[in-house]
């Protein structure tokens, strides 16, 4: 995985309720220090001189309490615990509430090359935001050769061999007012435990390569309403050439899944052959998935109804036999 540095953290493009509002006020030389874990530490114990199990590799957050204690140390002229603090390679120190660090701390940070950052957020708010942001960055991820589209609000991952018609199916879906998230290469991250979030990979994501047309720009052709930057993957649909020797699911009463990054995703295999309108099949699959989420499982419901009907038929036959 790519190294995440303190500079990367400062340069993240985060908006509104995600913004960290960080600025560097000292120790610029250390901006290349690496963030190895998506965790934080409040260094109260360390400042008072207790250094067992010091989680130095975490982001060190100085809230109101820690900062007040720092000023007390400064007034008393005590530097030894701070010197021990900067003897470890701390990735960075963050002062919340726009607080000013002490002269001792700034000098030691500058001397050891540890970046000192400042934010106007409160400690708890900054903590929740930074953990959320870092968890997303550190989330397990995987790139797959597929197309991700949003169909009736459901994130559908279209998979299948090259040339089977994934992009063409996606194009037809976009034409039917659905949205393209990524074509060809989908980057999947597992966030918040078991949510699979799919995005494109930078510059290429809202372009499509269609055989015979070349590369087309979906945003320009269909407008900004036809695209999305990211979408949770809720169904995986595999398109494959119709194989007469293979038997395809006829009832759908059994749910199949594939595992992506350890998460079970409902999985359908749709065989492709001339005369089968794949976009409409995908639309229907997406709507059916919504029904399932609402607790109505068409195939199982149908199966149950047939069983009930057969039971009554059976009872009727017995009754007629006896009379």
């Amino acid at each position, binding site marked *: 995985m790519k190294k995440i540095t303190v500079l990367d953290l400062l340069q993240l493009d985060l908006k509104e309720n995600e913004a960290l509002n960080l600025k560097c006020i000292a120790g610029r030389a250390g901006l290349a220090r690496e963030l190895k874990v998506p965790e934080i530490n409040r260094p109260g114990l360390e400042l008072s001189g207790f250094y067992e199990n010091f989680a130095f590799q975490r982001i060190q957050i100085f809230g109101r309490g820690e900062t007040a204690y720092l000023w007390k140390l400064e007034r008393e002229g005590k530097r030894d615990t701070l010197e021990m603090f900067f003897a470890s390679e701390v990735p960075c120190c963050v002062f919340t509430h726009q607080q000013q660090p002490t002269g001792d701390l700034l000098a030691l940070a500058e001397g050891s090359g540890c970046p000192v950052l400042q934010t106007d957020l409160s400690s708890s708010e900054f903590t929740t935001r930074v953990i959320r942001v870092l968890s997303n960055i550190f989330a397990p991820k995987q790139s797959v050769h597929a197309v991700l589209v949003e169909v009736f609000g459901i994130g559908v991952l279209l998979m299948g061999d090259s040339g089977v018609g994934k992009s063409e199916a996606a194009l037809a879906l976009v034409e039917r007012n659905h949205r393209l998230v990524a074509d060809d290469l989908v980057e999947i991250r597992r966030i918040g435990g078991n949510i699979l979030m799919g995005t494109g990979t930078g510059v290429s994501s809202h372009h499509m390569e269609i055989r015979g047309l070349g590369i087309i720009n979906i945003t320009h052709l269909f407008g900004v309403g036809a695209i999305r930057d990211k979408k949770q993957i809720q169904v995986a649909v595999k398109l494959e050439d119709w194989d007469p020797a293979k038997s395809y699911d*006829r*009832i759908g*009463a059994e749910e199949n899944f594939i595992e992506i990054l350890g998460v079970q995703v409902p999985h359908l295999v749709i065989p492709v052959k001339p005369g089968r309108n794949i976009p409409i099949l995908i639309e229907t699959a997406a709507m059916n998935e919504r029904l399932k989420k609402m607790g109505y499982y068409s195939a199982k419901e149908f*199966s149950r109804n*047939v*069983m009930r009907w*057969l039971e009554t038929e*059976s009872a009727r*036959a017995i009754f007629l036999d006896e009379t």
Partner: protein
Amino acid sequence: MTQRLVTIKNRAGIHARPAALLVQTAGKFAAKVFLEKDGERVNGKSIMGIITLAATYNTAIRIIAEGVDEKEAVDALARLFENKFEED
């Protein structure tokens, strides 16, 4: 034309799963396949058709096949009935 009379031996009768099994088996043969119950005849390759037969326990079903591999088709389908569609 080949035909054979079979009886449904599984308690639940022909519900969705056995119907799918029948259709999948019938689909493997080139011959035209029909199932008949009380003179009502349906296409053996249509899942909905088979379900609408309402074929319950102990019902007699006539399997009819017509085509090059009709014998094999009837054998294969009759075997499903005998095996109670792998149920019970």
